[in-house]
């Protein structure tokens, strides 16, 4: 699949305000975002997510490294035409009405008034903003402003939509709406760069994920790839077992498998794939034993993130 966005060893150093100390916000971050995917960019507060986005959108310049959007450098206006940007908070002119702000942004994107009004009508209908289109933005709720943010980000039909913490400060309804919008944009074939620290949202929405800790990229891959790498064993849930069966599985228990009763079921967890196959044969060959389910136990994205964060923390301490 074609790469929409490519970064190569992006690095950003800042000078702290008072002591003029050198602060590394981002170090050697390289990744690719493929066309049509929802790419999750995950990290704790201060991990470097917003710094990466600001570099990608031209708000700040990288100290070293490079990035391209469909082959165009970030300072190239052709690259800017391809992106739509939803910032973390609503930074819009609050004295303008929703329609006025769309006209303003549309013209900056080189659209003519007729096209802007047509597209604005479609977007406001989709985002339930029709009744508020002539009200000044200062009268809008946080959720409504976030929807205006989405509208301005996709007004010009960009190839790549960059969302920085799109769920920030939203109530559950607002969050559901944003999730629906992300799914809809994906269905329309758009590529979405989704930066967040809310891991459950990322797990639900993203095809691939990059984990960032302390300015460094620590993992990248699909949710499946990341979690399969952290196999926590295979869990069998059984019912109608008897004493004879318990005796049969004694060697597994001695070999390290965990066996426990839970809610009327017998839960057996074996670690290795070969053991799993043998145990499955044993279950199917034992009379009367019913297999309710067999699942591969994995770490959640949250567990992986915490683990990587701790590793990076220790690594930084060692280097210091």
């Amino acid at each position, binding site marked *: 699949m074609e790469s929409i966005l490519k970064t190569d060893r992006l690095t950003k150093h800042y000078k702290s305000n008072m002591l003029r100390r050198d602060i590394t916000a981002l170090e050697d971050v390289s990744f690719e975002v493929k066309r049509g995917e929802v790419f999750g960019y995950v990290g704790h507060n201060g991990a470097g997510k917003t710094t990466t986005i600001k570099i990608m959108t031209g*708000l700040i310049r990288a100290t070293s490294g490079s990035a391209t959007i469909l082959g165009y450098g970030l300072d190239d206006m052709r690259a*800017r035409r391809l992106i739509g*940007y939803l910032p973390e*908070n609503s*930074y819009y002119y609050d004295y303008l009405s929703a329609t006025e702000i769309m006209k303003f942004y549309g013209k*900056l*994107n080189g659209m003519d008034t007729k096209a802007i009004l047509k597209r604005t009508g479609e977007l406001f209908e989709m985002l339930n903003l029709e009744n508020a289109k002539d009200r000044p933005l200062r009268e809008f709720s946080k959720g409504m402003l976030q929807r205006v943010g989405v509208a301005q980000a996709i007004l010009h039909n960009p190839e790549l939509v960059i969302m920085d913490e799109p769920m920030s400060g939203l109530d559950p309804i607002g969050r559901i709406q944003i999730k629906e919008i992300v799914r809809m944009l994906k269905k329309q074939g758009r590529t979405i760069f989704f930066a967040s620290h809310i891991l459950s949202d990322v797990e639900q929405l993203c095809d691939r994920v990059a984990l960032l800790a302390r300015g460094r990229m620590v993992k990248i891959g699909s949710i499946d790839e990341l979690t399969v790498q952290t196999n926590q064993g295979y869990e069998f849930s059984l019912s109608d077992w008897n004493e004879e069966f318990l005796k049969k599985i004694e060697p597994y228990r001695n070999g390290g498998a965990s066996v426990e009763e839970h809610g009327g079921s017998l839960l057996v967890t074996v670690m290795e794939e070969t053991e799993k196959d043998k145990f499955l044969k044993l279950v199917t060959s034992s009379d009367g034993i019913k297999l309710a389910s067999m699942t591969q136990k994995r770490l959640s994205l949250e567990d992986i993130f915490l683990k990587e964060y701790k590793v990076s923390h220790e690594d930084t301490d060692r280097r210091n």
Partner: protein
Amino acid sequence: MKILTVAINTLKEAVRNKVLYTLLFFGVIVSGMSITLATMTVSSRIRVIANVSLANIEVFGVLIAIFVGISLVHKEIDRRTIFTIITRPLHRYEFILGKYIGLILTLLIQIAFMTLIFFCIELIFGGLEFLPDYLKAIWLIFVQIALITAVATMFSSLSSPILSGMFTLAFYIIGHISSFLEMLLPENANAFTVMLVTLMRYMLPDFQFLNVKGLAVYNHEIPFSYMAGATIYGFFYIAVILIIAMLVFEKRDMK
């Protein structure tokens, strides 16, 4: 086209800004006061009205240029409204020029409004025959204000409003006395001080060169060649200052 979009939006913002109306209100009050002063004077009433009104147009124009100009770009960065603007296919220099032109349009409206009041008062007192001279003086007041706006825009793109205000005001004051700077030097001034003052004399614009209010009020001839020279002089400084502002802004990180 994109510069114009930013400019029109800046004008819209200024028009919806209460500070502008407050300053305009005071400007109108002072214009009205010129009638009172004129009725109390023993010399030419027309001259008193012209003197007060032209000074009034300049002072309130400069005040609006400084008050609005010093936060023109800084406010966009501080409130982060700039985030959804310069991430679009818009060059940073286009943003600076758009903001500058927007404020200039606002000031043109203010100057036109106050000029209209001034001419109405002159009409009442029969001084309309001197309008061409007054218009020349008002044009050069506009050039001065446009120069101050450029300075405020430059400082606003690299500093906080308070510092920008102080620097811009200092620039305006020094600009008015720059032609006298060398005269202020003591006879025993050391070489470094002389060099510094001479450097400032040539680097800073001479606002007195753009001031023909006195000539207009006393109906002295203001040749076209002088007007053209002063206009080019003012526009040259505006261009230099805006180029500096654009270069500085180009490098700036929007944190």
